[in-house]
Each structure stands twice: as C-alpha cells, then as structure tokens.
C-alpha cells in the first residue's frame, strides 16, 4: 500500500538512486574497457554476432516506458544476481585456463564482479524501502553449466559482457525513472502498487 512517502524514505530513495546511477555509469565504462581487453586476450572478433546464450539476462525490453518502478527494480535485481554468478563462473574459467597467474583480465573481471555485487545490494535496499519482500535466491541460481568447449566458453563470455554493458545503460535509465515525481501521489513515479 503506497502511503505517502515519509520525507526520510524519499530522501533515502533519492540517495540510493543517485549513488546507483553513478555506480552503473562507472560499471558501464569498466565493462566496455573489459570487453576490449577480453576480445583481444581471447582472440575473438569484436564484431562477431553471438546468439543469445542461455542463462544470460537480456537487457532488451519492450514497452520499457510503461514499466512500474517495482518491475524495474525486480528485473534489474534478477539480472545482476545472474551476472554475479556468470562473472564468478568466468573468473573460475580464467583460472582454469591460465592457472593461478594473476592477469590484468582476471583483476578487471574481479573488479566488475565487485561492482555488480554492489549494485545488486543497492537494488535490494531500494526494494526494502518499498516494503517489498526481496525475492529469495536459492531457487534462482543458474542451472549447473553444461560442459562447454574452450571456444564456446569464450563466446559465452563475450555475450555476458555485452549484455552487462547494455544492462548498465538500462539501469541508469531505470533509476532515473524511479526518481521522477509521480503526478498523482507526489511519490516517486511508478512505485505505487497497482490496484
């Protein structure tokens, strides 16, 4: 039930959103750099088309402007949780390929993984503000990955990073939508529960 926001709630929401926006902006810049390094190190063609890979959340969305605030938060959260698992897997695969050698790519991957986790946390906090139960994670984990060849792993990694770069752009837009005042209630747009 969307009662009028208390001033502290509104303030906390705005604070979380603006920090989230900055975090997503930085995340996007880092992922784009990571993509360049990844393509080079894995010997891939940057313009290669990668078919949608199972388990990678697609940033593409229809009727984006009609989404409610809660929808945006839930979809973002599901996506970044999935990316958290996918990036951890990619790090694991890196270590398998190259042993324990500390590579620039490995460190960049780990840095992005950290940002993804931080962003997921911001989303959970925003959902808490809406007195929304946060969906549990246990059933949500990706299915155990099928055994992929080395090349398939590399293509998958490319797909993961590309979608993550798109998601980062979308997340900034989503968070901006959340901070827009709704005409009716004066609360942040779209966060009222549907009747």
């Amino acid at each position: 039930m969307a009662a009028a926001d208390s001033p502290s709630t509104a303030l906390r929401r705005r604070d979380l959103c603006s920090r989230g926006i900055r975090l997503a902006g930085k995340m996007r810049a880092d992922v784009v750099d990571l993509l360049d390094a990844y393509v080079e190190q894995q010997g891939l063609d940057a313009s290669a088309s990668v078919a949608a890979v199972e388990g990678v959340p697609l940033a593409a969305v229809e009727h984006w402007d009609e989404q409610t605030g809660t929808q945006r938060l839930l979809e973002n959260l599901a996506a970044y949780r999935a990316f958290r698992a996918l990036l951890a897997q990619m790090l694991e695969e890196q270590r398998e390929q190259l042993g324990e050698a500390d590579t620039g790519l490995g460190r960049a991957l780990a840095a992005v993984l950290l940002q993804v986790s931080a962003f997921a946390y911001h989303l959970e906090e925003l959902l808490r503000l809406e007195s929304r139960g946060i969906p549990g994670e246990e059933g949500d984990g990706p299915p155990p990955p099928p055994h992929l060849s080395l090349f398939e792993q590399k293509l998958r990694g490319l797909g993961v990073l590309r979608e993550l770069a798109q998601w980062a752009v979308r997340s900034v837009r989503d968070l901006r939508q959340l901070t827009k005042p709704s005409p009716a209630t004066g609360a942040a747009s779209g966060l009222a529960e549907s009747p």
Partner: protein
Amino acid sequence: DSHIQYERVGADVTMKCGSMDWDAAVTWTANGTDIDESHLNGSYLILKNVDLSQSGQYSCYEGSSWHLKYQTYLRVGTPPKEPVLMCRSNNYPKGFYCSWHLPTPTYIPNSFNISVIHGTKDMVCEKDAVPKNRCHIRYLQLFSTVKYKVTLTVTNALGKNFTTLTFDEFAIVKPDPPESVVAKPVPNNPRRLEVSWQNPSSWPDPESFPLKFFLRYRPLILDQWQHV
C-alpha cells in the same frame, strides 16, 4: 498507341515503325520535327550512341497517307548506382529514421524498397509523405544487443542496385541541435555574455535521457575559440 521506352546512355537504339514492312516508305519525327533519312535503315529508325538530349517523343507516319503508325516516348537514362543510405535516431527512445539518395541522377523514374531486420524480425519502415526518400521506424525494444540491418534497393527500367547498413541501437543516436540559442549582453558588464538555449523539441524525454551541451565562443576579431 504510344508507350515508353527506356534506353541506356550510349546505347544504340533501333525503332521499328509498328507492323510496317522494312521496305515501307515512312517518315519519322522527333518531338514533331522530321528526322533526316540518313538515320533510317529502311523503315527502321537507328539512333546510335544515344544521349540524354535525344529523349522525347518519336512518331512514325506512313509515307503517303501520313497515318500515324507508331509512337513511343524515348527516355534515355542510366541504371542506378549504389544508393547512399543513412539512419539516425534524433528522438531516442521513440525510434529512428532512414533517408537515402542516389549519388548521380538516372534521369528516369526510380523506385525504392527498404527492408529493416532486427535479428530475425522484419520491421516495417513507414514511408514519410515528405520528403519522399525517408521512412521511420518505432523501436519495439530498447537496450537490445541485436543489431539492425537495413537494406535499400533502388530499381528502374534499366537495372537495380542496393546498399546495406548494419548498426547497434545506440550507434545511430544523434539529437537535433539546441533550439532558441540566444546570446544577450549583460547590463553593466561589457565583457560578459549570457547565453541561453533549449533542448531540441524533437528530443522526447530529456529528463530520462538528458542531453549534454558544449559551448564555444570567440570575439570576431580573433580566430581562436574559447570553450566554456
């Protein structure tokens, strides 16, 4: 009965006078002016290495009766060269438009066909009434990593040609320039100017998709720009 005949620049054109025999006595005219017999081979009209100025109405009359036996409209032109195509979104996130033109004229009518594919999905590009060489598309999805592929085919009576563009959703975003750019002097401060402007009216949602502006200025007497 008259019809239209399209021929390439530089081609040799032979016109028959309808069903008249080769050895019939006929007179040919071009846009009403008699054509000299030196261009005739029997009753056939031979035009060698035609150029654009030879476009026009050609008529063939039976020698004695002056009955009109055949008439055609000759249009000399060229098959189309590869068209120039560009696509742009100046109203993100609503959609984008593509516009095209031919690098050189063909001098004969051309028809254009455009196809837009997003992944496996065919999209419809709605043609604008004005200008004619433009169509627009609404984005069905946003934030997609799947590329768009636009193919423009141009066809005329003498041939066809085409070109293809492939791009990402973000790559073609380019807003229109700012509007109502005004520079006003500041009272009592001759070394200052107050510059104001508006978001382009074509940009639908500057709150969700804010635009960034860059300003440079210089006094007329100096060549170097300064940046704000």
